[in-house]
């Protein structure tokens, strides 16, 4: 490998990048846009859910329930209709997203040691709110039960005293798990979009053909593409990481080396993928469409935004075929749980495997495809 050749290729790439300032600006600004989007929108912890309470019992207990819901920031009690039927309109119009129904006979049931069912009605048209609203409501009811048990001195009765505690990320702030995953996602989007155009552009303009009649070897060409974009990606990651953790106050309990190693491996797979797309595409438009086609599912199925456990069972094994999935696991575990290399052996092995396969494929593709 001729170092002078590689140096020239890298120099050329940077010269060209500088001539497209919009691209550079976009690459550098994108992390911030993503940080805002994900930090504030995706990671937004649901609060102030508009709620309705239907009290059909009018008892001491029902009033306790009412005040328990009214006094928390999670629920914003907007209406207290007299009948359950009235809920229909409220939910239909979107005036409320959650409704608590305290049926007639609740107090009576409790007094005789029975279980009283409390209805939690959620608006199914808004899945995230209903999911979260459900858990908040259940929490409040559980607290009520606890308080009631204490009041009645139910220490006299047997039962289960469950102590629930949260390990890691005690505040349960979604931001703390979003931002780490974001590092990998931003990297992926940027690199794949930019790289997929890189080779096609040269093929279209004929400079690729020209270059291979010169003493430049295919290996030198690959490295010459890898280095500049790799460097760019590193810079972008560093910025994202610093701003993200600083601005959102995301705690970092893990090892910097693991994060860097994970990101580096992931970067290799992403660059490899971008190059592969670029190599098999004939036109720039084709490259762009292929990238969109490939990237969107990767993004969605990686578990970054939407949890993998909630996906249908047949799909779950496939999520392991997406490099981003493993990168997100590594980053999240490292940031939030301080996981070590041994703990993350599985995702790392996957990433190494992907890096070898994808990059290897890219090298083979270079040898073959560029000879046309």
């Amino acid at each position, binding site marked *: 490998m001729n170092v002078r050749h590689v140096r020239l290729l890298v120099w050329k790439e940077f010269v060209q990048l500088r001539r497209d300032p919009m*691209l550079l600006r976009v690459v550098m600004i994108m992390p911030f846009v993503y940080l805002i989007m994900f930090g504030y929108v995706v990671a937004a912890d649901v609060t102030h859910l508009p709620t309705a309470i239907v009290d059909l019992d009018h008892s001491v207990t029902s009033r306790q329930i009412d005040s328990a819901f009214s006094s928390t920031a999670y629920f914003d009690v907007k209406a207290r209709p007299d009948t359950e039927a009235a809920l229909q309109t409220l939910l239909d119009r979107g005036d409320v997203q959650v409704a608590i129904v305290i049926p007639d006979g609740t107090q009576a049931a*409790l007094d005789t040691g029975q279980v009283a069912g409390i209805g939690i009605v959620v608006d199914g048209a808004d899945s995230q709110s209903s999911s979260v609203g459900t858990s*908040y409501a259940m929490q409040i009811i559980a607290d009520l039960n606890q308080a009631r048990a204490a009041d009645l001195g139910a220490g006299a009765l*047997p039962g289960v005293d469950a102590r629930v505690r*949260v390990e890691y990320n005690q505040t349960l702030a*979604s931001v703390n798990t979003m931002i780490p995953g974001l590092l990998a996602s931003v990297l992926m989007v940027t690199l794949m979009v930019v790289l997929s155009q890189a080779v096609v552009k040269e093929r279209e303009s004929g400079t690729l053909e020209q270059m291979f009649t010169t003493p430049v070897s295919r290996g030198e060409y690959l490295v010459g593409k890898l280095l500049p974009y790799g460097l760019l990606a590193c810079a972008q990651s560093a910025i994202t990481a610093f701003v993200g953790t600083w601005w959102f106050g995301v705690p970092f309990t893990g090892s910097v080396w693991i994060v860097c190693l994970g990101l580096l491996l992931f970067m290799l797979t992403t660059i490899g993928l971008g190059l592969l797309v670029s190599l098999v595409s004939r036109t720039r438009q084709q490259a762009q469409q292929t990238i969109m086609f490939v990237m969107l599912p990767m993004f969605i199925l990686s578990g970054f935004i939407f949890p993998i*456990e909630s996906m249908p069972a047949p799909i779950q094994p496939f999520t392991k075929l997406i490099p981003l999935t493993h990168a997100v696991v590594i980053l999240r575990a490292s940031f939030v749980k301080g996981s070590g290399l041994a703990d993350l052996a599985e995702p790392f092995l996957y990433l190494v495997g992907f890096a070898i396969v994808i990059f290897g494929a890219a090298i083979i593709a270079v040898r073959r495809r560029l000879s046309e």
Partner: protein
Amino acid sequence: MNGLDRIMAIVVKEFRHLLRDPRVLATVLLLPIAQMLLFAYAISFDVRNVPTIVIDQDQTPASRAYVQTYSAGGFFQVRGDAAGIGDVDGIFRRGEASVVVVVPAGFERAITSGAKADVDVIVDGSDPNAARMGQAYALALNRLYGQQVAAVWAEKQGLDLSAAGGLDPRVRTWFNPDRQSSIFLIPGLVAVILMIVCVQQTAVTVVRERDLHTAEQMVVSPVTHTELIVGKLLPWTILAFFDMGMVVAVGMLVFGVPLRGSVVLLLVASLLFVFASLAMGVIVSTIAPSMETANVMALMLAFLPGLLLSGLAFPLESIPVVLQWVSSVFPARYMVDISRGVFLKGAGFSDEWPQLGSLALYTVVALFLAVRLYARKVRT
């Protein structure tokens, strides 16, 4: 040749271009369907099958019965038991489970002797949604179980039962009994996927043509800029509608999404929305100096806000007010609202006129800007 004839000529030319490249056609027509199917099928916020590990240090019939209740609900997915408490940290760090239940020795003894049995439930906070749900479900489950135990005991002892009673949360979903996220997401997805395709296609097409200098050739002819833009956008509008039709059909037939509201409203809104998206694409193409940049900008302007700020998947009420204002700048938000209203809530013009108005305003402004910017760009 009057204006309309010229527009038709451009439309025909554009169509011929499209049909000549079957790959472009395939992506424009098939891509939205394929992706929609994938997402609708895969995406869900509903927490279920939370991997759980139980450490049963009592190993008695009572403790085993207790452990059973976790598997019964469908919420917890009990994966196995581990050796001891020291393991819990490792379990979480390796990501083997999100919930660990520790049943200490003496569980059965406590229950049968009328005392309270301690149980530790530890949740992994690195998945906040699952953790929260895990907490809530665990508490409810324990409450129920405890109540059963207490009732039996109290009966046996002839004790006052009132302390044995408790509140049991019963969750009901209003609109879709299956609580399937797909039904929630599809109406919104319809809008978003359309937008992504529209903005991308236009941005790329116009840039490419500019690159190839054909745009300059067109300027020399007596076509006005407005005619040119309308002529270019019309074929894409038709295709986008075709797409939408397919997407809706699949949504309704395969996923059982209901269509309860005004179809006319949906069509009108879609028309406005498609035009607005195409106009946005043209605007992007005039600002972007190169194709990659057009690409990236389309991604950032269509994909991101489309997905995140439209209310498609993430509730808009919970985000900072500033961002809520930003979201009102993107037409996707209104379209998603209208779409969801028509499909799921049986909405009509009277319900959605504010959104429709905003959408119309947006479209007019976007088209105006598109024509202006395009004219200026071509002149330089």
